[in-house]
């Protein structure tokens, strides 16, 4: 269930912004395209009241230090509470363009050269997150914007986890939140210790598979969450479809590695994937 805030109420609560339109909300945040007094386009996200303030505020510190062309910049984060009235929101850079979901339609297969260019940049963004010891945990088409120059920008860090934190108890509830269609096996298991940067690489593998093959590797129409869990955690059927088996060996190999059930067998980092993709482009 998405957390929504009517735009008129949001407008009243944040008079400093001009509201352009409401964006797709998530379970944790209502989102709006707004413009500040200087004419900068921004993305205002109002956090659901039941969301862990403690966890988010710690993660925000890491995000605010991050500056990378393939990662949306976090501009502001505010949590205040007085006389029972809470203001809990964040403001991200507004990334113009479209969602990746528009380009990942069933049956639509990207050229390998387009995929190499796009996913290499996406890997660069993920590498920047890793350097900041952050895991996105909800990498999916609607959280990746495509700008006018076709470069990707990772947005929406609502579920991001800071790996540097030794006290992870507050993330135990979060181990299994995210978007199931892009869950890695360790997210389905819900074990907090098993979430790391390679969890994002599994989602990256699903996205790459969708781009190259033209279909989701695990999700079929009408599939229940239980069925999806079973397929993600045990099945390798996605590697038997003709569109996959007819790929060059190196393409098959990198996709297989990204979609490995065990983290140890996935690529060690997004930088490694970027290097491999660049080499595939040279061949």
């Amino acid at each position: 269930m998405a957390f929504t805030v009517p735009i008129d109420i949001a407008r009243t609560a944040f008079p400093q912004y001009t509201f352009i339109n409401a964006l797709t909300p998530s379970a944790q945040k209502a989102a709006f395209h707004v413009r500040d007094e200087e004419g900068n386009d921004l993305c205002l996200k109002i956090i659901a009241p039941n969301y862990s303030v403690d966890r988010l505020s710690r993660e925000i510190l890491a995000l605010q230090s991050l500056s990378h062309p393939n990662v949306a910049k976090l501009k502001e984060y505010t949590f205040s509470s007085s006389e029972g009235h809470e203001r809990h929101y964040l403001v991200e850079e507004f990334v113009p363009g479209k969602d990746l979901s528009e380009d990942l339609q069933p049956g639509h297969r990207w050229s390998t050269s387009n995929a190499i260019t796009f996913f290499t940049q996406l890997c660069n963004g993920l590498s920047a997150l890793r350097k900041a010891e952050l895991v996105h945990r909800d990498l999916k088409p609607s959280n990746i914007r495509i700008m006018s120059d076709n470069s990707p920008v990772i947005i929406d860090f609502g579920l991001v986890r800071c790996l540097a934190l030794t006290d992870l108890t507050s993330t135990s509830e979060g181990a299994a939140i995210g978007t199931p269609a892009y869950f890695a096996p360790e997210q389905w298991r819900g074990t907090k210790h098993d979430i790391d940067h390679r969890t994002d690489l599994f989602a990256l593998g699903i996205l790459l598979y969708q781009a190259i093959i033209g279909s989701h590797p695990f999700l079929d129409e009408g599939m229940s969450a239980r069925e999806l869990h079973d397929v993600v955690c045990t099945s390798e059927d996605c590697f038997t479809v003709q569109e996959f088996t007819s790929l060059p060996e190196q393409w098959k190999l990198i996709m297989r590695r990204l979609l490995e059930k065990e983290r140890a067998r996935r690529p060690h980092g997004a930088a490694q994937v970027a290097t491999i993709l660049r080499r595939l482009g040279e061949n």
Partner: protein
Amino acid sequence: MRRGPWHQFGFNSHNDFALDLLRQGAGVGVIISSRDLALQGAIEYSQKYHELDAHVLLDLQFYVPNFSNAKMDSYEISEYRLPVSRLHQVTNDDLTRLTSKLESICIDLSPDGLIAPAIVYEAGRTNIIELNARLFENVKRVGDNLGIPTYATVVLGNSVISSDETINAILSSATSLNCDGWYFSFEFDHERIPSSRDSIYRCCTAGLTLACTGKPVLHAYSGPMALLSLGFGAQATAIGNYQNLWKFPRERWRPTTTRRGRGSAPARYFSSAIWGTIVYPDEIARLSIELQNQVLTQSAFSTRISPGPPFLPFSRWDANKHLVSTICSTVTAIASNSDPRSNAAAAISILERAVDLHSRIAGTGISLRDNTAAYQENWRVAMSDLLNIQSCDFDYLEMLR
């Protein structure tokens, strides 16, 4: 991480032993262990090794963290040698102090890389995973400050190696560390040289998984198994002459009440042709001259030894140096080829010849002591299986090269 054979410290006088071998061109580096060399000696010998163009790594050996001895105490970090349960309670401030002391040690010792202290991984012990991660993060800061690589220690304990699932689970956690390479070892069953086909296969598969991270792997405590290291994708392999360095030896970090060794057993001659030891001169003398010619493979430390009588004395020290030199020489030859598949094939080829020679010796009615023919065939099969079953991993390694 330098490619090829390294010297694994394992007893008090290994310092000069390693010097002698390096002077003969055997080995590319030395792993100094705090258990066996006090800090002042480590500083002194580190300089000597560097003068011979060898690299030096420092292993602070937290495998069994509550073990300590006088030499370890000289490193000024003994206060952190605590049982796992207490080590868990160490605060971040304590770890910062440990980091500071370690940095000071490193400035004096000038190692070319740091081996992060870590406890032996055990199945189902998430507290060990967390503790190793904390230790690693702090030591990595020292490595980064000094501009040297930090290698994460991955020693898989007995409870881990019994199944592929537990190995994979531990490796998935261990490989989340953002290290510059892996210092990897495997705790085998109690036998002189590991011989179980399944265990060898699992060890090689685990090493290959680590190699597929794209970070260099140093196969620690390999001994004669160094023959296999580069075949599973390791960049380096660490060899000591003592039998208790031929697999991860947890008992070395337990207090002992009995004195070991120093018996009057005859020297063992390590033969690259049988990839094992043979008792000298007793068993050598029983072989035909033709077999002696094949078995007595030479090194710079065995020039006095030749087939046929008289069998000149062969000191234990020379026998030890001959063993390490012979293994180093074979590993160096294998390491000259950067393709792990070719390295595995080279090891298989050596093992095939060894199996054949053992068979010919057995055919003359001679049964060698030390159960020295027990493992070569199993190693050969394990490596062949690795090449076949883990073919995709070798393909992936190829992509990373």
